[in-house]
């Protein structure tokens, strides 16, 4: 399985590269945010494969936190402020 | 000499220098804060490269502990810097 995992990691790496091109190219901020979303999901996949490959079981916990926080970037990006200051 | 150790350590040096340059030269305060964070990233990478011992070998835990607290301290320092930004003063 290890050979397949390595190939899969490299496949995901190329997917990440394509996502990076979109982050750099834009054109709009929304396009970039979409690409950040893709990079996050790809990162989760890579961590899941790297865990068994490097013998680091804890990497699944890292992937879990990334997955739980995957929406935070987009939410913070689109969040509209309250009109009045805190009250 | 481990290739991975060298690769990550030299990349860390490069990132640190890039961050430092922008922190010194850029006009926007927010960008300077980002730059200082990038610089910190370079330092963390150097420390973790020093800790690395090769695949399958346990790395040195001391730099790990340093970087771990460093990340948390860096984000609170960032928050303090952003709270001090003059834009906020004028808005109050």
């Amino acid at each position, binding site marked *: 399985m290890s050979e397949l995992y*390595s190939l899969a990691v*490299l496949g995901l*790496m190329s997917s990440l590269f394509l996502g*990076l091109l979109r*982050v750099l190219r834009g054109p709009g901020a929304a396009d970039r945010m979409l690409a*950040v979303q893709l*990079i*996050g999901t790809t990162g989760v996949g890579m*961590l899941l494969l790297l865990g068994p*490959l*490097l013998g*680091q079981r*804890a990497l699944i*916990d890292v992937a879990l*936190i990334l997955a739980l*926080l995957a*929406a*935070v970037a987009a*939410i*913070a*990006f689109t*969040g509209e*402020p*309250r009109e009045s200051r*805190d*009250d | 000499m481990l290739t*991975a150790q060298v*690769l*990550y350590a*030299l*990349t860390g*040096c490069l*990132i640190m*220098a890039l961050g430092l*340059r*922008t922190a*010194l*030269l850029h*006009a926007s305060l*927010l960008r300077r804060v980002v730059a200082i964070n*990038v610089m910190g990233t370079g330092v*963390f990478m150097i420390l*973790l490269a020093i*800790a*690395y*011992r090769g695949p399958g070998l*346990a790395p*040195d*835990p*001391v730099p*790990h*502990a340093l970087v*771990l607290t460093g*990340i*948390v*301290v860096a984000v*609170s320092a960032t*928050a*303090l810097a952003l709270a001090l930004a003059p*834009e906020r003063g004028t808005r109050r």
Partner: protein
Amino acid sequence: MNPVSLQLFDVLLLLSIVGLAWASLASPDDRRSVILFMALGLLLALAWGRLLAPDVALAEAAIGAGLSGALLLAALREQPRREAPGATEAVAKRGSSPLQAMTQWVVTLLCAGLAGILGWVLMHIFAGPPLDRLTQAVSANLGVSGVSNPVTAVLLNFRGYDTLLELAVLLTAVLGILALGPGRAGYQPAGPIFDALARSLAPLLILVSAYLLWVGAHAPGGAFQAGATLAAAGVVLRLAGRQRIGLPPEGALRLVMAAGVGLFLAVGLSLLLLGRPFLGYPPAWAGALILVIESAAMLSIAATLVLAFIGGRLPAHGIPAAEPATRRREAITTAAAPERGGEEQSGC
């Protein structure tokens, strides 16, 4: 993973990291810079995992993906809107006069020189015998540290002084932020879709942080990672429009923020009274003491990071400050009324 594909992976990962860092620093506007920086944080979590530093990767995932991006975007929102797109570019590129151009060159050269010297020194270190005196000291004493995760042992036991002072640094930073007045304006209440997500994410994040705290004794995890994850739950709730995110009132919150340093210090001083060195735990109690200190530290770190995200003091509770008092008075008068009525009746 075979060495060739691992090396290919390293090169590609580092290329993307350097590319993103450069693009973030050099981008024409601040908003794009922040978005690229957030993407960089995701790749860093991968890199730390690759360098066999899962403890660091956990903290990076919670902070890089959750906290620092949201914090920078919130700060960006506060900046005055520069309507003309060219305005920021004009400010950014100020190398117009010859003196400024020269300064840029000098600074660039100095930074390159610094990187070169540092790289040269590092190569020198790597060429020599491995520096593992500390590693050996840690693994030799791991048995008496009370935990089996070496990073937690270093943080909470062997280098407890450092961690105590780091918690003090966090406390100082948040006191500085609180001294600056009220926090940023919050977010508008979330729509139904995001609200549903926030409702399920917050308890899951709290659960994961408790898990990380517990597991930190023998596997990657611990107070810092758990605190950062707990803070991320607060950030999610704040983004969903919960103004106070269920935090305790001001006084109790300050107590929580000071609890980490306070308890750490109290344990250290009581050990001194018992005739042991400061923070020198007796091996039999070390595991329990570390867990107690870490629980307090986790709460302090989380409270600190959430307040750092809010960027100032919390708003008062949903009801305006005057109202609880008047309500209580009303309650007293209504409660007292029948009694008084009874007296009057009896008097009649």
